[in-house]
């Protein structure tokens, strides 16, 4: 079954909006800082964060991106809600499921809670910190902020969190469980993760920590869609299509999350045009979502991205991710 990306929302190192991600993609310039690809929420519209004062950064990034995806799809104005500016309250009536993929969840908040335990003891910990340390806090804030009453799910599968979430979104649409799915990925960087990754990925030249949130409004029919999603899968035996046509592209998630970068090279069929967009968002286990956003923009607007010039990518784009155990994830997109 095909599904269509009818809206997108992005919070990345490029900025807290899709527009900034798009501009960086078009310019071919990422936003790497000395500490990696970090999100600066000071640049976000404050009015959109006013209901999220107690939320952590992961939840704030997720809500900003999710809401932008709904707005981008023209869905935030129903039930009398304004299509621009902050919502007055939940916009009841949008029938949508929410699936949030996260590899590591709100780990910075979890470590904050552990700080509480170490400093104040088991009976002196913060209930607010605990509530926000639960993996599904971000999706809960999304449902509440956007007034979405459909099934709301948070899933994790480390390197393939986003792929499995996408496969489920397609299944939900196929069985008619929901008319649309707000699908997203979000992950955050933090001090402990930086320490761990620095040691475990030592020698991975491509590793540069990233964080952010990417959301997609998926529907079974196109409405000024960015692109169609034609396939999604994981396994040990799936491979990218061989194509020597200049009109197709293979995006590899070569973002430094595995040491053996040659594994990607080995899987790129000879003559196939391949590219990577880790320079745009950094290293993240859920980086495929950001690559999917880049691919969708390239297909719709024919941006040049990493290419010297866009030869006209109108056949399709595949996105490939590997883990260190030889498992693969593959997503296929085509023009809408």
């Amino acid at each position, binding site marked *: 079954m095909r599904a269509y990306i009818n809206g997108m929302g992005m919070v990345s190192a490029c900025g807290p909006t899709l527009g900034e991600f798009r501009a960086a993609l078009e310019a071919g310039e990422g936003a790497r800082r000395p500490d990696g690809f970090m999100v600066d929420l000071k640049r976000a519209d404050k009015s959109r964060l006013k209901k999220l004062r107690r939320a952590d950064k992961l939840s704030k990034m997720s809500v900003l991106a999710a809401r932008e995806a709904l707005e981008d799809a023209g869905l935030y104005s129903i039930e009398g809600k304004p299509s621009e500016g902050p919502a007055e309250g939940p916009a009841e009536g949008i029938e949508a499921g929410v699936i949030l993929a996260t590899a590591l969840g709100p780990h910075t908040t979890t470590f904050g809670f*552990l700080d509480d335990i170490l400093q104040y003891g*088991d009976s002196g910990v913060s209930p607010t910190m605990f*509530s926000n340390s639960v993996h599904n806090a971000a999706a809960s804030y999304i449902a509440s902020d956007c007034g979405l009453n459909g*099934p709301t799910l948070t899933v*994790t599968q480390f390197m393939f969190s986003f792929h499995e979430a996408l496969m489920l979104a397609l299944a939900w649409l196929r069985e008619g469980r929901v008319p649309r799915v707000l699908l997203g990925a979000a992950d955050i960087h933090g001090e402990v993760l930086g320490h761990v990754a620095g040691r475990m990925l030592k020698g991975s030249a491509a590793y540069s920590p990233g964080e952010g949130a990417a959301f997609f409004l998926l529907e079974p029919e196109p409405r000024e869609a960015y692109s169609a999603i034609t396939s999604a899968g994981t396994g040990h035996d799936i491979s990218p299509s061989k194509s020597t046509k200049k009109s197709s592209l293979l995006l590899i998630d070569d973002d430094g999350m595995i040491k053996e970068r040659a594994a990607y090279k080995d899987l790129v069929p000879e003559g196939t045009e391949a590219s990577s967009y880790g320079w745009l968002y950094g290293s993240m286990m859920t980086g495929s979502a950001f690559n999917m956003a880049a691919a969708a923009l390239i297909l719709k607007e024919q941006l040049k991205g990493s290419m010297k010039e866009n030869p006209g990518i109108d056949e399709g784009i595949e996105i490939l991710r590997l883990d260190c155990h030889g498992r693969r994830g593959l997503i296929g997109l085509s023009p809408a």
Partner: protein
Amino acid sequence: MANENILITGMGVVSAAGKGVEETLSSLASGRRDPAPPTLIDSPLKNPAFEVLGLDEKYCIHGQRTLGLMLMAAHEAASMAGISQGSLKGARVGVCLGTTVASQLNDISFYRTYKESGDPGLEPVERFLGGDLSDCVAEHFGLHGPRMSVVNACSSGTDAIGVAMSWLRAGLCDMVFAGGADELNRVPYAGFNSLGITSPEPCAPFDKNRRGLNLGEGAGMLVLERADFAASRGAGTSGLYAAGFGASADAYHLTAPHPEGKGLRRAIARAISEAGCSPSDIGYINAHGTATPDNDKVEGQTLLDIFGPDVKVSSTKGYTGHTLGGAGGIEAVFSALALREGLAPMNAGFRELDDEIGLTPLRENASFDGGFVMSTSLAFGGNNAALVIGLGEGSL
């Protein structure tokens, strides 16, 4: 796909109520329960908890107790389903499991060392990164298909079963190992205490004088498969099938349920509609019933409103404690067993009707009519999930 096409061919369960189906049935029949201050975690707090005592050595995996519990339930479920090593070669078998603890790197010892020396050993991290529940179960049984760990707080297990049903309907796989697991862990133990919703006494779901929840641990798993696949591999069936699933968000509050149970009503309505039955066909409801003031009030009122005062309902958390991500899997197994046996377990701990709720749960184990049972789960974040299980003609 017709509603009777997702068969339950295997079940496995482990909790304080018993290690395995038979021991669990015996505990539920006798009303036996024995919560006590935890021995598995080092905490100055002494609220009672429901621990799994005497876990077989082979399931005591260092630093991965949740995985050990899950594997124990998985082995029992696979055995009941007639799955042996290599018997699923070539089949597309998914694994979808709910958890909370296994998804977090909440190793206090690791973190303390990191804070103190800045150079902790990475073994806990490697264990965590290699410990995704669904990956581990899939690798253990050599399964090839979609894998997902659902981290939806207390409804994770029920939601995981719902995902499995969607996978089967969408044709993503032929069979799914679905359920959930969680170990008793110091972080949620302290966290729930901080929220002021843990009881210093054995929990009393739906009781007027309930004082909060007791945490527990355990795992529950269903083997779900398409009827045609079960037939093709010659699997015997008990007639149990996953009939309907519904989930809905309250979109209301991070920790409190919607006061009118809006999300729960929608979830129940969807599950019943999918099952092709009506509320009067539901013979027994295994309620979430955590014994917290808010949950039981909202859930009890909602069930009373939808199903009427004569509905047979109980919470089994009086036997297991609240097992968080494991609860949905464990209670799905309890529900399926109730339907198979025709006997609903009583609501341990209940003594006095709460007039504000108006619902009287089962005071004694009771037989019931009807070809369907339902299990409900409510969670942090306002998630609500309902699973309807049906009983058709079996071949055993």
